[in-house]
């Protein structure tokens, strides 16, 4: 009998050692959330009905549900038709995942206007709508090179080939992604890649001989909005950043650095192009090359920016549009 007690004691001891409970956690997603019927716990709301983005304000959206869902908020400007998309998944929509600072996902940029914000939930037919009024559009900090709202600056230098169907003009129509105007660049030049160019000298911005930019190339971002025209031959927009390293007011191509950003416009509609100045390389005839100056990116020594519209002369007519050329500090443009 004593032996049986020992056996039972042994089994009891093992059972005690093995006793463990994990009452507060479970593996995998909640079955209750996955399979229960969708319900809105807290309705879809916006934190305020009017917002001044220019003053640095923002709004956030909120809602909560009984289960994890995949959701999307589409904010559309009633006048501009600007479109902001915020998306996520979870049981709640709140300040941490649905804050809007006035930025745009699909151009144009939001103006001071009334906006509709629509919440859609994957696999749920119902949608939820709130309204928000923008009193002032978002303020963008940076060195504006060109937004074409006042046309072409007389201090800029232009060269436009005498090809066929040439249209190198500032346009005012509903296509404008920001403000009311943009620059159209189009034409057929069957003897040269160059269709036209504009030089933006620092002098035009009152900071001769160089632009007023930070010296650290990692802090400077170059941005612009470029429009790809559907069903036309591919345009190439080439930006040449010419550094006046010796500060003599002129750029010497044999002794000073030139950095080049080549953008092949292979998309349709407006697209934001942003790049850190430190990442821009030297290109000669489309091929990487060694800069001729000190070999250092010196954004504070940029004396002139040349913008060239290029296309293969064998292809025929090429067309693109450009707007909102701007340097921003520390981060890419968030329009």
């Amino acid at each position, binding site marked *: 009998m004593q*032996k049986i007690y020992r*056996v039972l004691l*042994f*089994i009891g001891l*093992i*059972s005690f*050692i*093995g006793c*463990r*409970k*994990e*009452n*507060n*956690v*479970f*593996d*995998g*997603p*909640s*079955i*209750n959330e*996955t*399979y*229960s019927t969708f319900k809105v716990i807290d309705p879809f709301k916006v934190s305020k009905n009017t917002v001044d983005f220019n003053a640095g304000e923002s709004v956030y959206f909120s809602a909560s549900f009984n289960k994890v869902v995949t959701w999307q908020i589409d904010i559309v400007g009633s006048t501009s038709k600007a479109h902001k998309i915020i998306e996520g998944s979870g049981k709640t929509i709140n300040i941490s995942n649905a804050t809007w600072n006035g930025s745009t996902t699909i151009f144009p940029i939001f103006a001071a206007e009334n906006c509709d914000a629509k919440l859609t939930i994957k696999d749920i037919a119902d949608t939820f709508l709130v309204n928000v009024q923008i009193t002032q559009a978002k303020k963008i900090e940076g060195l504006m090179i060109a937004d074409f709202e006042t046309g072409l600056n007389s201090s800029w230098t232009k060269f436009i080939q005498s090809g066929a169907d040439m249209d190198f003009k500032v346009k005012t129509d509903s296509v404008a992604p920001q403000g009311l105007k943009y620059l159209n660049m189009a034409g057929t030049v069957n003897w040269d890649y160059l269709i036209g160019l504009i030089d933006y000298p620092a002098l035009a911005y009152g900071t001769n001989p160089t632009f007023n930019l930070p010296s650290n190339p990692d802090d400077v971002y170059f941005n612009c909005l470029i429009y790809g025209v559907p069903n036309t031959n591919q345009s190439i927009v080439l930006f040449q950043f010419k550094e006046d390293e010796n500060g003599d007011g002129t750029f010497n191509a044999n002794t000073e650095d030139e950095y080049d950003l080549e953008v092949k416009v292979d998309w349709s509609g407006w697209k934001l192009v942003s790049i850190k100045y430190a990442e821009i390389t030297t290109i000669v005839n489309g091929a990487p090359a060694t800069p001729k100056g000190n070999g250092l990116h010196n954004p504070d020594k940029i004396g002139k920016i040349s913008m060239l519209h290029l296309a293969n002369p064998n292809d025929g007519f090429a067309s693109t549009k450009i707007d909102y050329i701007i340097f921003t500090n520390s981060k890419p443009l968030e329009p």
Partner: protein
Amino acid sequence: MKHLYKLTNIIHFKSTIGIAIFIFSLSLLFPVLIHAQNDRKVNFVGSARALLNSNNLTVTDSFPDSLTIKKRDGGYALIDLGVNIKPNKNTEILGMFRIRNEYGGFWGSGVAFDVRQLWVKGIFANSVRYQIGDINLKQTPFTLYNHHADQIDSMPLIFGIQQSIVNYDRFYMNNNTWRMQGANVDFGFSFSKIIKEINFSGLITRLNASNFTTIPDRLMSGYSIDLVQSKYFALGFNNNLVFDVKGTIPDSNMFNNMVNTINIKLKKEIGKDLASIAGEVGQSKYAYTQDTLAPTYKDYFIHAYAKYHLTKYNLELTAGYLNVGPDFRSIGAQSKDVNYNAAPSYFNRYGNDQALRPISLFDIVGNENIYNRTVSSVLAPTNQLFNNVLPNGIATYNRVGAYGKLDYKTKKNINIHAAYFNLAEIRGQGSLALKKFEMYKLNMSLPIHQLINSKKVLSIQLGTNIQKTNRKSAENIENIDLETIQYTAGIRWEIFKNFDFLAGTIKQVSKGNEFAPDRNTYSEIIYFQSNQYELSQQISALGIRYNFSPKSHLTVLLQENKYLDNKNTTADYSFNQFGIIYIISL
């Protein structure tokens, strides 16, 4: 870790002419095989099998199935040819080729030529045994072990004949080994005092080879140290490690799964009875070295049982306790013999939508194509219908509870085996509520001829396995209630000397609901599939067998397989199969 191999010739034939030709062919082969079994340095060993079958499918779908070809005849012939070389008294080498010809193949068309097994074994320094090449390996139930968790315990003989094909092809040697490729050594020391002996064994095998870009070499190593103090006390330490070999791919993120266990066994004679206590405890770690998205699983397990053998009644009682942590991972012990991702070989698509035919009782019984030969390199999927209580045997993670077993054998050789498991989850799956599991087993073999003192064998096998899964939650949608009942019955009746009538049936009815986890590559649950079952499967067969010798027999059988899904998740079907099986074991 003994190497075992068995020579089995299994032949299915459809026509009488085929049988005659086959038997004649074997009669030519026999002398060669028999003469091969002497003590020469070079012996030729081998086996042969031909399989021809005729199948007729019936599909009951909402619309008549006009796409599936309902009648299929097929099969193959194969021969395993081996050379066993003993260059000296301490070394033995075996190389075996398999030549397989699909039914209808001729002059190279449909012919496959493979190496079936290749190994060298021997003893060096008169003390260390080694084997290199193909090896059958096992350690303990929580380190490296083929649990055969979904197998039918009481398999009627007529189906057991079919399963012997699986066992032969997949090297299942009835001792829970896995067939692996690598090397192992074992040696021991004997002592005159205090300790009787200490035995060491070690292994190293490759689970998968590198593709030099994304898949690294994955190896398994292991060792065991067993200290035997006397026949009353033994203690062991076991290690098993699955690991990726750094440098075999550009990525430096490497996987490893380490398991360390201690096992103990105590015995005590109480009068004429024998009592024993045994157990194994251990812990595991399952991790990736650099993948920040990958979880690290660490957990432990305890398994202990007490056994009492009443010699007078030839009755053995076992009571056990099991606690395997939810994060306990052991690839060597949790690999499954059945690959539920494999496509069944017969009528693998059916119905108007040509849906993949789910793996059924028929496949479990005798379809070698769904069985794994070796340990998988990742944790394998399980099937709720065939084993929801312990899908990875007693190494199943996330289980705690107790069990009891009874084994009874009368003087007239009536065998009764009963078992009851009462288990629960430790951590919930998609719910804080925990599942509870119950499993009842009762298997019996009745040698009627011994009861009535007849010389002609008349034996009956009966068995049942009932599995219940329940979860009761405050949220009704999380509730689970699944029951699977499996019945088996078989008979062997020796009508004339060496001439048996065989019949058997296995029926499995599953009813209720369960949630099946979908797991990602890290074995994390990412979704739960809601499954509703009202499923009945049954295979029934009858046949005749002629025994040429205890190891050699010819069987003709007719088999019917039914699959009825009352929830209409899949279309109902049934198919009949005719076959002839000829087995020779040398």
